[in-house]
């Protein structure tokens, strides 16, 4: 056995370059939240009997009722259960009650505010809030069955093994293999032809050269993707495939899950390489089961929330020379009984007007303003993870509009999603995420 001496300086040097040196430790509340989440009873595998039960009692959203019981919540309106949201999935920020498409990496010690967004509502938006159905995402098969089923679709031989409890894999680690695991009550899966493509912790790749073989056409890739999903047993309603062929080495197909005629943020991805080989694929195994129908806020209200939550954008990366690190410029509504969050997307739950106090943080310097006139508002379904470990598709307003301002040098469209469920039926985890 070799014992290492004399290399302490090297280790010290690496330790000094620790990316999270400036990140404060997890709060006691966060650790308690993790403990509570981990120990919460897992949703059972969906069964026909349970399906019938849920269908018969449309007003009973079992998961949310369990959460309400655990947290001792008092639903504002007894006829509808309250959603206790732990996180918003698919790139959303939980505190924001929605997903801001601009990619912000909050919590990074090196972040600094770069832009201030100012939203206005186009007069062309005349629709208002109405009823919106919530759907629970449930998996009718477990991860092991899913892995086996997918292996068949991808022509991978072998039995499902479980390197860790709940994770199942068919095929060798070196690839090709399929992997399936359950997260928040939903079975997720991926297909990897080789292990090298399974990890992204590598330096940014050099500009890629065109593949030796010919790539499938967009139409071929779309058709193949749909056939592949069908052969894997994914039979729910799917949207029209979106094809990205901007990378000369692959054709990337994305197919959205459609529920009740509405587009969701759940999707399936299949990437094709030369000669039509699948380079990677991923998705979920889940069915959307309708729960209760909730009143929703108007697009204007959603834009107000967007202004509160995303009135500024922060970004990681290198600090521009001479740019001061500023506190965020934002107005925060603080519900009674909760503390205020100061980082983007991490604030407390928006609540109906008049039930909280309002504070304003004054900036110490003026940030470049990006004006966005929201001229498109479509109700879609976004994924949210509840504190009881279940996942739900909830109505969201998908908002978009053109950007303008001194920093906008080319036509750009801002897109973001905001949870549309009336805030009185939503309870974000008690402690805002502040890091």
């Amino acid at each position, binding site marked *: *056995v*070799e*014992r290492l001496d004399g290399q302490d300086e*090297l280790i*010290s040097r690496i330790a000094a370059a620790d990316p999270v040196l400036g990140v404060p430790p*997890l709060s006691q509340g966060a650790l308690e939240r*993790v403990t509570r989440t981990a120990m919460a009873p897992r949703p059972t595998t969906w069964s026909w009997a349970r399906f019938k039960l849920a269908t018969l009692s449309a007003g009973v959203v079992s998961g949310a009722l369990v959460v309400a019981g655990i947290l001792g919540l008092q639903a504002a309106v007894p006829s509808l259960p309250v959603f206790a949201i732990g996180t918003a999935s698919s790139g959303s920020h939980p505190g924001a009650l929605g997903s801001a498409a601009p990619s912000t990496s909050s919590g990074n010690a090196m972040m600094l505010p770069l832009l201030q967004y100012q939203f206005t509502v186009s007069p062309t938006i005349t629709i208002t809030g109405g009823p919106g159905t919530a759907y629970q995402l449930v998996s009718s098969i477990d991860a092991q069955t899913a892995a086996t089923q997918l292996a068949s679709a991808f022509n991978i031989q072998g039995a499902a093994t479980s390197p*860790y409890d709940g994770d199942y894999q068919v095929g060798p680690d070196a690839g090709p293999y399929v992997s399936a695991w359950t997260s928040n009550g939903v079975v*997720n899966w991926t297909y990897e032809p080789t292990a090298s493509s399974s*990890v992204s912790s590598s330096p940014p790749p050099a500009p890629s050269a065109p593949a030796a073989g010919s790539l499938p056409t967009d139409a071929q890739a779309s058709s193949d993707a749909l056939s592949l999903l069908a052969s894997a047993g994914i039979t729910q309603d799917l949207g029209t495939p979106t094809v990205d062929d901007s990378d000369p080495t692959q054709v990337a197909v994305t197919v959205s899950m459609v529920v009740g005629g509405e587009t969701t943020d759940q999707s399936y991805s299949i990437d094709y390489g030369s000669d039509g080989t699948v380079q990677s694929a991923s998705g979920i195994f889940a069915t959307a089961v309708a729960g209760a129908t909730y009143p929703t806020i108007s697009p204007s209200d959603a834009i107000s929330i967007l202004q509160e939550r995303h009135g500024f954008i922060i970004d990681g990366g290198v600090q521009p020379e001479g740019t001061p690190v500023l506190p965020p410029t934002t107005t925060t509504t603080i519900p009674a009984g909760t503390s205020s969050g100061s980082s983007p997307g991490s604030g407390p739950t928006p609540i109906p007007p008049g039930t909280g106090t309002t504070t304003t943080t004054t900036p110490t310097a003026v940030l470049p303003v990006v004006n966005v006139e929201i001229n498109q508002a479509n109700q879609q379904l976004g994924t949210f993870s509840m504190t009881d470990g279940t996942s739900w598709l909830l109505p969201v307003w998908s908002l978009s509009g053109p950007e303008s301002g001194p920093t906008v040098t080319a036509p750009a469209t801002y897109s973001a999603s905001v949870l549309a469920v009336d805030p009185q039926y939503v309870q974000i985890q008690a402690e805002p995420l502040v890091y």
Partner: protein
Amino acid sequence: VTTVDREERFSRIVREHGDAVYRYLRRRHQGADATDAEDLLADVMTVAWRKLDDIPEGAEAPWLFGVARHRLSNARRRRARRDRISATMRPVPPSHAAEDEAVADLQLRAALWQLTEKEREVITLSAWEGLSPSELGVALGISVNAAAVRLSKAKSRLLELLSETGAESPAPAATRTVQ
């Protein structure tokens, strides 16, 4: 073991190691924010709760890092898919790996990236998570000997790379063999 005992042990594990696992995840999850990392931590701890009886006493941290490695691998694949979907909606700023953004020592960063993933993993587990060779064995699912050898080779390789790039490298490594 009673239910109360299990709950107490689990709570202690989260209290004592939760932050370390959280940091492990944030260091390595490309573009991760605090929420992503906490989600993954909850995932890791869910496995820990269910497999509590399998967690070796005294080696809780490396066991958790092992689970985190696996979860991270899956999350990265999911993340790549998610980013691609976001990109179709709006141009986003370039995303950098957490290590890439925050490792201020550029030469060190460049050298780290030239290591194989296994080399980089073992050396950062040692430097950032402070794992001993025996703990590395648990975290990486390999023998103690294999972990020690891998760490040794990774360090030597890193020193070579730093030397090649003309960096102010630390003093040459001295390796001695013991039983």
